[in-house]
């Protein structure tokens, strides 16, 4: 069951494991933004949510060939379009 229209914008943190999306924009302060860029988070890139830790712990996401762990709070700063 889909909770949202496939092309409406949502945040990375609301994806379910196995879902993929395209990054629309990143709203983070300078230092975090730079680190996200270096890790491969760029507008237009595809991301896949691999898994979530229990008790709203970190998310594991895959961008291309890199796997990254990040907290929900950081994932909320990344807007995506479900694909």
């Amino acid at each position: 069951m889909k909770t949202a229209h496939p092309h409406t914008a949502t945040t990375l943190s609301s994806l379910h494991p196995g879902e993929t999306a395209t990054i629309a924009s990143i709203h983070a302060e300078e230092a975090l933004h730079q680190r996200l860029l270096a890790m491969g988070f760029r507008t237009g890139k595809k991301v896949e949510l691999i898994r979530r830790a229990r008790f709203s712990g970190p998310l594991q996401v895959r961008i291309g060939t890199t796997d990254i762990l990040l907290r929900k709070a950081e994932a909320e700063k990344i807007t995506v379009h479900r694909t």
Partner: protein
Amino acid sequence: MKKIALLGMPNTGKSTLFNRMTGAAARVGNWPGITVELLSGKILLGGDMVEIVDLPGIYDLHGFSDDEQVVRHFLRDNVPDLALVVLNATQIERQLSLLLQLKQLNLNMVVLLNMADEARKFGITVDTGKMTEALGIPIFLLSAKYGTGYNESMQAAARALRYTTPGLAENLRDQLKQDGQIETEMARVLQHSVQVPARLPDNLTNQLDHLMLHPWLGLPIFFGIMYLLFQAIFFFGQPLQTGVNALFGWLREAAIVPLLAFLPAMLQGLLLDGVYNGVATVAAFVPLIVLFFLFMAIVEDTGYLSRAAFLMDVLMAKMGLDGRSFVMLLMGFGCNVPALMGTRVMRSRPLRLLSMLVVPFSLCSARLQVFVFVTAALFSPKAAPLVLFSLYLFSFASAILTALLFKRYFPSSEPFLLELPPYRFPTLRQMMLRGWHEVQHFLRRATLFIVAGVVLVWLLTHLPPSAAPASADTLAGIIGGWLHPLFEPVGITPELTIALIFGFVAKEIVIGSLAVIYGLGGEALSGALAQQLDWVQAYSFMLFTLIYTPCLSTIATLRSESKNAGFTLFAIAWSLVLAWMASLAFYQTARALGY
């Protein structure tokens, strides 16, 4: 002398390459941020002596965590004659951004696309010729771990060294191009030279993670692995230790005693019962140390540390820490000093300080020696691994309690963002190198602290000459007497008190001093301990040993990393208070329950 710097993102294999080039044993591990300070070595390259500098990894030229500062300062103070830029070939799509930033500094560069072996496995192809053309920088595929492409890379480095180095941009930051430009250029370079399959094959890493990061099984597996380790320590380490002890005992009777027979009795006593017994008892731990660090090397190289961070981050967040702090606690199992330095990857100072406050509670390999010795002496072979396991749990508990109590003084809102590298396995060569390195480290500490320590303990327990050795009238007895009111309520005897005082310098001395105090080595010492103490006293002693300040090196590192004497003093004082309170609570409760 010409200087070559190794630059690149964290965990790309710079230290592996450095070791291959220089034959050094720089620490390698599958964790971004293993190297946090610069390391250099000299080699002959293309007929000239050159200096190779291994640096911490950097994500970009904007970074300002303490490990990235090391690189910024290095580049500010030195213009390397050549920068070897090490990129992970499997992640070239994103790591190219760092190369393009570095390119703007007008450094003389050669690019090495490392982990070519993994790239091939993933089906990623790189046309280095086209890429070299697009970038105007020589580019080579390399596997620093297995050596393929190494010779070509070194020849290229030697060739590049012949050119003069253009100057470095005055102000790094101002000159950096807008990120948008970098993005366009990345796309241009990658377009024709790199091919990545749309979907990577479902590899071993994915399958293993399915199990290791399982929502319900993840943590039980973690503790299960730890428990197996302690079983292994007693199963393999203990017999080895007993063997080495027997060997030292035999050597003493067969060679050392006759050899020293001509000396006056007092000096004989000092050399035999002091230095020899003390050092031999400590030296018997070498096999255990090697075994333990081989295990640590494997854990660090598999990439499990990042998985542990994933599993524990939620819990750590409740204590004002994050998953990386937990990884530093695990790294501290080897030695607290590199674990304290490893916190440099944290950008927020409060988070870093709070992590540094808890790391010294991590049960390091020196404390492990004390515990293995005492548990083997006082507990049944079946119970011993469980006792050891419980001490590791107390180690975590002390860290958790400390963080909970003090987190409000160290507020931080640092984002948590960490790479999850694929699982890897160390080569035999990597493991041997690490094992050898740790033995050297152990022996260096041994010669430095332990010999001096045991001599001092011997003097304290034998002076003044009128007193019976180790009696209440000796200097040691007098000191033990003074501290008695403090240690009596926690069940720690005057003999153990003396050992604890020396343990402040380094935990390796504790068993050595006991050997000297009792005038017995190895197995005989175990027997004497078993007679003098009951298990409640022994456990209380171990709790105290676990929690109070690990060693002088740790204190020195706390001081130099925090650059704050007040913080350092606080860390020491708190650990002493907590040690005493924990032992008191345990001892009095156990006695009240009738044990």
